[in-house]
């Protein structure tokens, strides 16, 4: 079980999260703004940090940057609808994931599990199996219902990046930089179109994608096999 630092200026949210997380057996510390959050991240060395974006004194974005100077513990950003650009900035500044308030506890626990698994030092997953889709990165093999799927090099690059980060949000910029190269990070429509093709090949629905999920205004997330 893990040590979780909750940084949020709203006492209701702090208390609720503390009680919920302690109920799951985690050790919890709270901080009420970015400054205190950075200090506790340094002194208490949490395994994971839940970080609100809009806070007095120091907001989540700068707190995230400060924490990343000394800690690689996963950071999950707590934000509200409409802060998409701040979310993206936080993710690009080293946050691992985000969750939009108001959120269900179940969703939060899933995010925490994914983030903790990544930080546990285990190597990134090289296989993905879920509802008929199977990806084996070592064998460079992608099958849907047992049938092999042929992907272009770019599609494969995007998919393998998603598989290594299954369950975790990846920003448009991150995916573009990874699959195309840093000079293409502005070319959102490339990505849009390749994701469309990829979904089609994976037998994913265009309206209700099951595997490659859209995070509006932020990026994409491959569903976690254990959701």
């Amino acid at each position: 079980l893990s040590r979780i630092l909750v940084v949020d200026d709203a006492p209701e949210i702090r208390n609720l999260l503390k009680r919920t997380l302690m109920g799951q057996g985690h050790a919890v510390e709270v901080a009420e703004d970015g400054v205190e959050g950075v200090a506790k991240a340094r002194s208490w060395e949490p395994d994971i940090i839940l970080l609100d974006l809009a806070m007095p004194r120091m907001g989540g974005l700068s707190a995230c940057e400060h924490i990343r100077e000394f800690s690689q513990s996963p950071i999950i950003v707590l934000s509200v609808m409409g802060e998409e650009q701040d979310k993206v900035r936080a993710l690009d500044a080293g946050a691992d994931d985000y969750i939009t308030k108001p959120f269900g506890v179940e969703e939060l626990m899933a995010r925490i599990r994914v983030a903790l698994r990544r930080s546990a030092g285990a190597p990134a997953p090289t296989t993905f199996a879920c509802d008929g889709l199977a990806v084996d990165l070592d064998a460079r093999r992608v099958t849907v219902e047992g049938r092999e799927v042929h992907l272009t090099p770019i599609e494969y690059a995007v998919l393998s990046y998603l598989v290594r980060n299954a369950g975790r949000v990846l920003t448009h910029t991150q995916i573009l930089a990874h699959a195309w190269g840093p000079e293409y990070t502005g070319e959102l429509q490339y990505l849009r179109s390749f994701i469309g093709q990829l979904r089609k090949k994976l037998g994913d629905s265009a309206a209700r994608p099951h595997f490659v999920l859209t995070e509006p205004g932020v990026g994409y997330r491959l569903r976690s096999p254990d959701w």
Partner: protein
Amino acid sequence: MKKLVGDLLLSAATVAAISGGIAAVLSRWQVGPLAVVYILGILWLATRGRTAALLAAIEAFLVYDWFFVPPFHTLDVQQPQEWLELGIFLVVALVAGQAYALQRRQALEAAERDRHTQLLYDLSTGLTVQENLGGMFDRMLAKLAQGLGLSGLRLYVWREGARELSGGVEVASDGVSEPVTSVYRVPCRIGEHDLAEMEVFQRSDGQPLSQDDLRVLQGFANQLANALERRRLEKEEQLNQVLGEANRAKSSLLAAVSHDLRTPLAAIKASATSLLQAGADFDEGERREFLAAVNREADRLDRLVRNLLDMSRIESGALTPRLEWHNLSEIAADVVDRLQPVSDGHELQLVAEDREFLANVDYVQLSQVLTNLVDNAIRHGAPLAPIRVGVAEGRLWVENQGRQLSDEEREHIFDRFYRGEGLASGTGLGLAIAKGVVEAHGGRIWVENTAEGMRFRVELAVSEERGVPSPSLSHCDGRGTN
């Protein structure tokens, strides 16, 4: 000084010419005193002013005496009666010249005053015309500059303590590019309050401005100040009206919102207190029902708050869509899935081919539009009848079964705070927001009656560019399954 020299030369020339004429006449005919002829020249010179007439009278007196009164070529006079003649001539010449010059000047001044009065009148009638200020200023200034023969005029209006150039005219110089210099600054003020300032440039002909010119300028400045003040008061009045309207809107918003906030709050409070009751004995199913109600009503509150935020953004003009290419069917499916659990028994059906309908939209905002349309359909649909959400290329629609809309309702259904006939619930915000958002996307939203009920349609601008260019793949190695 220049004028004096001119007067001197011209009067000398005139007197010389007339003297020549007299000498020519006298050489042929012996006629009586011809001195009177000089009077004509003096009157002519009087049109130039009193100095020229005065000089000419004296010159004529001297020349006549010198050449034509014996003994010739001296200023001496033989006969005493000739002294008298010469004296009378001098007096007549002086008086006639001065009187004519004076009368002539008064006539010119009167004409000038008339012209100035006309000019001021024209300008004042021009100022009362309500229109674009900048253009009006330029036209007025051009008229004034032309009327007074100025090489330029500029108008500066004071705005928050700083002078701001608000209009100006500069007469094209005649190629001699001598820089025009400003000679006056005329303030436009109301009481002690400076509203504007006119910068006056020298006359095109280099002459100084007369007192009358200055009076015209000041007169125009006063009219301008009045016009500016009137404009300011009108604006203030308009602002007050807008503020009053906003205030009323705010009151009705607060009334509607407090009602709508209270409903889910009441449900949450009731569920929570039921569960908290000491000694209450609920089975697991009942407990879950209370909790589900809390969950559902919290979502409803969330949607309401989001609408309020959107409304305030639309009102303040701060709603700028962050456009990205999104799949409309994905947005629609997302909304349908989210609202199905709170649809009061209506089945939400998604009508779309399973393919991508890309549109350049703000995902969050467009999903709010659809949420509001579906929410509206749930409120107004016939009980338990299905609600259909359709997607096609650049188009979305939401249709429900139930009553049809009257013409009046159709006209006002997208107005803020408008609620349909006989309906108590709803803030009257959802559809107004839908309209605001769709229009911020450059799209169109409207409602139509169908055979079974009503259908809201949204049409979004779809980019011409369909194909997506492929980036160079040269830096990618062959990692892949094929």
